[in-house]
């Protein structure tokens, strides 16, 4: 009993550490922003919340808001030689939502780095995912050492935030063979263009030039999955179908042939692959790998 209590207690503390915003120190500065040798941090840290994120990133803010954006903190660092670095820390409501917005902006062919769960460098920009944080670091006039400088910043920010290496656990349900690296996504809202399909993980595949996509939507409950499927069947003019836990072959007016299944708290399916042994293999594999 006592052991169970301590396990629950430490789990709760760990969760709080991940989800709570970083604190400020005695000078009012966020402790997320590190001290960097040779760099002077600007006095004021800019903070943005959902109502005014637009002021900082304009039209791009709408997409961040669909991923339960909570707060953005921005700090600027300057060096004597006029070089500057800007650190932006976006905090989302959960690690899954942070992964969602990160995955929307990630190029599959980027120069990837092992920072947090994952990061990448691209011409004076270094972005990375770390638990509920999506961190963007950009530079100006840093010269040839730019990549190294940004990596140093990223490592220190990660240390301050507490390193979180994990991607959303549901991604391990997807079969590995043929997976396009770094193209997996989490779609927060309106998956496939339907308002009742949300919180969808997608993984792209390329097998000898044959490109297709698997998707998986965890529901709140089995009833939630049934309701979503019922609405989908109404949309694709199959309202008479009795929704049951099984597979369905759908002729979607906008997406063509989709095979979709409902199993427990999950809806999954496959896009852009006509009926074939390959389709059967991948769907079976996805179903078999779902969390029990």
């Amino acid at each position, binding site marked *: 009993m006592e052991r169970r209590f301590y396990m629950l207690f430490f789990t709760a503390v760990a969760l709080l550490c991940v989800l709570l915003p970083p604190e400020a120190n005695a000078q009012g500065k966020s402790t997320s922003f590190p001290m960097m040798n040779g760099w002077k941090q600007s006095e004021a840290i800019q903070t943005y919340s959902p109502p005014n994120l637009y002021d900082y990133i304009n*039209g791009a803010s709408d997409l961040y808001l669909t991923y339960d954006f909570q707060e953005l903190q921005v700090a600027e660092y300057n060096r004597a030689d006029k070089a500057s670095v800007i650190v932006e820390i976006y905090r989302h409501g959960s690690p899954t939502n942070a992964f969602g917005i990160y995955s*929307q902006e990630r190029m599959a062919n980027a120069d990837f780095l092992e920072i947090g769960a994952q990061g990448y460098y691209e011409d004076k920009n270094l972005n990375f995912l770390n638990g509920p944080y999506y961190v963007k670091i950009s530079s*100006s006039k840093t010269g040839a050492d730019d990549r190294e400088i940004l990596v140093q910043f990223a490592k220190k920010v990660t240390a301050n935030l507490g390193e979180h290496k994990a991607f959303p656990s549901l991604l391990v349900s997807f079969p590995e063979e043929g997976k396009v690296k770094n193209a997996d996504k989490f779609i927060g809202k*309106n998956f496939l*263009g339907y308002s009742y399909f949300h919180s969808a993980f997608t993984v792209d595949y390329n097998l000898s030039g044959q490109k297709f996509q698997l998707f998986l939507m965890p529901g709140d409950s089995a009833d939630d999955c049934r309701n979503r499927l019922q609405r989908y069947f109404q949309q694709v003019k199959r309202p008479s179908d009795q929704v049951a836990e099984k597979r369905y072959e759908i002729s979607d007016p*906008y*997406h063509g042939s989709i095979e979709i299944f409902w199993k427990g708290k999950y809806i999954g399916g496959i896009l852009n692959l006509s009926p074939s042994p390959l389709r059967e293999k991948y769907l079976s594999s996805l179903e078999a790998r779902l969390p029990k």
Partner: protein
Amino acid sequence: MSEKGIGRRDFMKSSVAGLGSFFLLPGKTDGLGLRAQESKSGEKKIIHRTLGKTGIKLPPINMGVMNSDNPNLVRAALSGGMVMLDTAQTYQRGTNETMIGEVLKGRPRDSFVLATKARLPNDQKTGLYLPESTEEAFTKKIDTSLKSLGLDYVDIYYHHNVWVRDSALYEPIMNALLKAKKAGKTRFVGITTHRNEPEVIQAAIDSKFYDVILTTYNFKQKHYPEVRSAMARAAETGLGVVVMKAMGGRYLQEDSKEPIDPSAAMKWVLQDPNAHTIIAGFTTFDQMNLDLSVMENPALTKPEKAHLQRGALMAGLYCQGCGQCLARCSQNLPIPDLMRAYMYVYGYRNVVAAQDVVASLDLPLNVCGDCSSCPITCVNGFRVRDRVRNVVRLRNVPPEFIA
């Protein structure tokens, strides 16, 4: 009627501000091409407007692709009759442009209009550009967009997100755009503005450089008359006028949680003949189909007009509770509470709630009576004294006349 001679109807009648200019030409929409047109076969036809001196003919609503990563939604929009796709290099860090490029592969180049945009680092407070914002940097942005889109040229390249005149006329960016136009990388050049729009639009007119403006314009903007006038001046000089953020948010007023009717909001914009087209940022097929239906018949219905009027009233009634007025009132009146009561009456038509608020406040008998002039200057521009005097009259209305 009460002994004070004030009833609910009298109270309501006496104060609602006029909304004379809210609708451009109520009941006379034929001249604006807003009536549904039908072909001889009976099939609905979509109206088109010309984007100023560019000569590009566009349907009244097109797709702002910014929030969509769904290529089939873009395909459906083009199949449904939309022509222009609007994106930006920053949307999803370029992956939005890449996705659009995939959709456009193999399509005849004259079957779509592609508009994209970029910005350079500026001071977030002043809106002025920083020294690193160079012509070369903007040229690089243009080249990156073309590469992501897989196109030889775009139709409009916008100088993005400007809110001060000096930045609208920033030479390094104008030089980059001019060279891009001469090199055939873009057919036309434009400028976008999300705030302080009239100043930026006037700068675009004065510059004689830009071909198109993309501006925020909606029925909830407090300064929509100024934006409307600026758009008219722009259109008169031949600028194409594209409107964004036509919805003005999700709710008529945040704390009312009454959703904005998207059809009504877009139709309100389209009443204005100088709004050549709207870019709508839909992300579902249902939203798209609704937009397509507006394209077929953009005339406002009576219920839609009533909805918009209610929204505009609320926008002009909403006290943000900054509290700056409190220290200036010699009677220490709880002015934000009184402004809330005023909004309940004239925004929500809920006189009972308003009277409850007024009754709960510890107000002096002679409200405003000792002041010959009001020392308060409201940051929202409310005529505080008039509103206070108006709403405190509710103390004299017997509850049985209200409930």
